[in-house]
């Protein structure tokens, strides 16, 4: 089986294994720091991977993404502050459990649920991606353009609270990617006669600006003199700091369902863990025989969102590997890593780099096991260590790290300036509820979309009518339009309901 070859490839590369372990630890710690996300950590560590072999580079960042999703639950449970948006639902039962002296139980529940969900998602990726790639390998430029356009519309429509702002975020990201040399003719575009812009904007400073520097600005805005207080995790009895076998059996069906929800959401571009955790929490609460207990500190209230948010990870790679369309911000960053190492993503990757792909899958499974071990026995310790370093001490050092990471990508101070500028842009995106994730995904995809469109026209004597001759392309256009219409109808209904509610009360 290919996955066994993947394990062989991984275990024959000690450096890759070492980086899987480092990635597992780094992700847990970064995820546990309130305000800092796995995407921010990956953005800052991306330049480090330039010096590594492809498997080590990809495995390192991929595992950080996985363990970072879990790490957010530590802050949610111990500090009542979500370490990442994906752990916001975990807070609802996690912190009440901590207040009851059951922080140890809460952390172990989160660890087991995260490992379970992540493993389910990873298995879906391993067996699903290769099967889908066989079908998508026959796609040409018209189909790819249709896929890219569908991705833009879907991501813009569903990400964030506002459709118009989501689509604007997407268009602005696409606009940023067009700066530089035209990919077909080599003509200079939108460079404003600035020499440093001839090669376009680099992904690394953009990521660092939008995710790290903007976050530092937000944290400086929220800053108070408060410290992070970590609750006592010892508990009064053995039961208070353990996740029992009976509790596991009780949560098993719930974790399977929640993992399914997370996997489905993960396959759709733009939705992500923060949507999955709340959908799973809401669904399991609705199904529960005792919904009034949810939110008071029960293990089910942690198991559901944690299974779902981690189950997103593997399936979010499916559109990336089969279509070249990233299903999440982390997947969008990984496209950059693939390209830096000269690997073209899309269905042909299973032909050209099969060993690498399955090595990456194996890394994912090993990484899951590693962060599970770290989280199960080391979760409380990680929380206590982080509490020793309040945000006002951490963020200056994060700023320094961001600066050197932006500089090191191309040894360019211009890139650092770009990171600072986009830090301000990212802050205004947050302030006015635009989507940085949609911006980045569109930035990564836009060049490919333009190339595919122009190649389609070159292939055809009929101009844009070529799309009418391609049923698969039409199907993807229809999906994008359908999602946009559905989302618009949902939003309009919600607005009507909100507007009508005060009249009902009167």
């Amino acid at each position, binding site marked *: 089986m290919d996955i066994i070859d993947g394990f062989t490839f991984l275990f024959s590369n000690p450096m890759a294994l070492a980086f899987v372990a480092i990635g597992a630890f780094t992700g847990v710690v970064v995820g546990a720091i309130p305000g800092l996300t796995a995407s921010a950590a990956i953005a800052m560590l991306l330049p480090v991977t330039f010096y590594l072999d492809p498997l080590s580079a990809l495995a390192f960042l991929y595992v950080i993404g996985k363990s970072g999703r879990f790490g957010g639950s530590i802050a949610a449970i111990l500090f009542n502050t979500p370490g990442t948006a994906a752990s916001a639902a975990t807070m609802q039962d996690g912190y009440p459990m901590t207040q009851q002296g059951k922080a140890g139980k809460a952390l172990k529940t989160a660890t087991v649920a995260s490992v379970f969900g992540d493993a389910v998602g990873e298995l879906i990726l391993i067996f699903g991606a290769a099967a889908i790639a066989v079908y998508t390998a026959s796609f040409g430029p018209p189909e790819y353009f249709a896929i890219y356009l569908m991705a833009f519309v879907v991501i813009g429509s569903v990400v964030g609270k506002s459709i118009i*702002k989501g*689509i604007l975020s997407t268009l602005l990201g696409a606009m940023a990617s067009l700066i530089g040399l*035209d990919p*077909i*003719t080599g003509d200079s575009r939108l460079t404003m006669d600035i020499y440093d812009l001839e090669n376009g904007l680099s992904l690394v400073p953009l990521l660092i600006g939008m995710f790290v520097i903007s976050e530092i600005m937000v944290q*400086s805005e929220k800053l108070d003199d408060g410290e992070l207080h970590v609750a006592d995790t010892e508990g009064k009895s053995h039961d208070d700091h353990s996740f029992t076998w009976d509790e596991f059996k009780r949560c098993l069906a719930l974790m399977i369902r929640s993992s399914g929800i997370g996997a489905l959401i993960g396959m759709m571009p733009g939705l992500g863990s923060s949507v999955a955790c709340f959908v799973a929490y809401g669904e399991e609460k609705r199904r529960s025989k005792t919904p009034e207990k949810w939110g008071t500190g029960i293990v089910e209230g942690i198991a559901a969102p944690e299974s779902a948010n981690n189950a997103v990870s593997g399936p979010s790679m499916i559109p990336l590997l089969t279509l070249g369309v990233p299903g999440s911000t982390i997947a969008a960053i990984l496209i950059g890593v693939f390209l830096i190492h000269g690997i073209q993503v899309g269905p042909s990757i299973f032909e050209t780099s099969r060993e690498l792909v399955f090595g990456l899958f194996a890394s994912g499974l090993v990484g899951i096991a590693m962060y599970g071990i770290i989280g199960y026995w080391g979760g409380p310790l990680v929380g206590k260590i982080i509490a020793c370093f309040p945000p006002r*001490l951490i963020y200056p050092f994060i700023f*320094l790290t961001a600066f050197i990471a932006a*500089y*090191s990508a191309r040894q360019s101070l211009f890139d650092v300036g770009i990171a600072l500028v986009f830090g301000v842009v990212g802050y205004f995106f947050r302030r006015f509820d635009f989507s940085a994730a949609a911006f980045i995904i569109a930035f990564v995809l836009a060049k490919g979309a333009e190339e595919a469109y122009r190649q389609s026209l070159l292939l055809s004597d009929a101009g844009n009518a070529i799309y009418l001759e391609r049923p698969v392309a039409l199907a993807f256009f229809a999906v994008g339009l359908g999602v946009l219409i559905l989302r618009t109808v949902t939003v309009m209904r919600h607005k009507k309901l909100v507007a009508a509610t005060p009249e009902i009360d009167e």
Partner: protein
Amino acid sequence: MRLKDDYIVALAVAAVGGFFFYQASLIEFADDTLVGPRLVPMLTAGMIIGLAALIVAAGHIMSNGRKAETFSVIGEGEPELAPVTKLALRRMASVIVGGFVYLFLFAAAGYLISTAVVLAALLVIFGNRPPLKVALLTIGGAAVYFFVFIKLMGIHSPPGWLIDLTLLGLG
């Protein structure tokens, strides 16, 4: 978010779109290309301007008989960030100014000095107070960052045009 905020967003977005539309119109290319390098940038900028116009038009249509501060065309629910205070604004501006100062000092004096200066400033901006603690963190932090990134990872730190520490082996 209320209608006034929508119009501010629309204006800013239209300005960005207009700027890029103009820049796209300046793109030079050979006339014999079927679909040239100008099409997609102009199309994208045009869509941005179009959406900005849509926001304004929708706001005008929906505002009949309603107070502008009671609804939003493009806002949904509560905004993520609370209204900003003057103190917070000063702090944020200090972070960005600190970043550009870092850029200047890096070119002028190299990585070590620029890192130490900016680290000290950021520690103070973020509310770390006892001067001795700030000084110790600054010296230790700058030294560690210099060693890890410049010496261990080999990132190039060019000689400063004002102060050149490479002569002392600190570059």
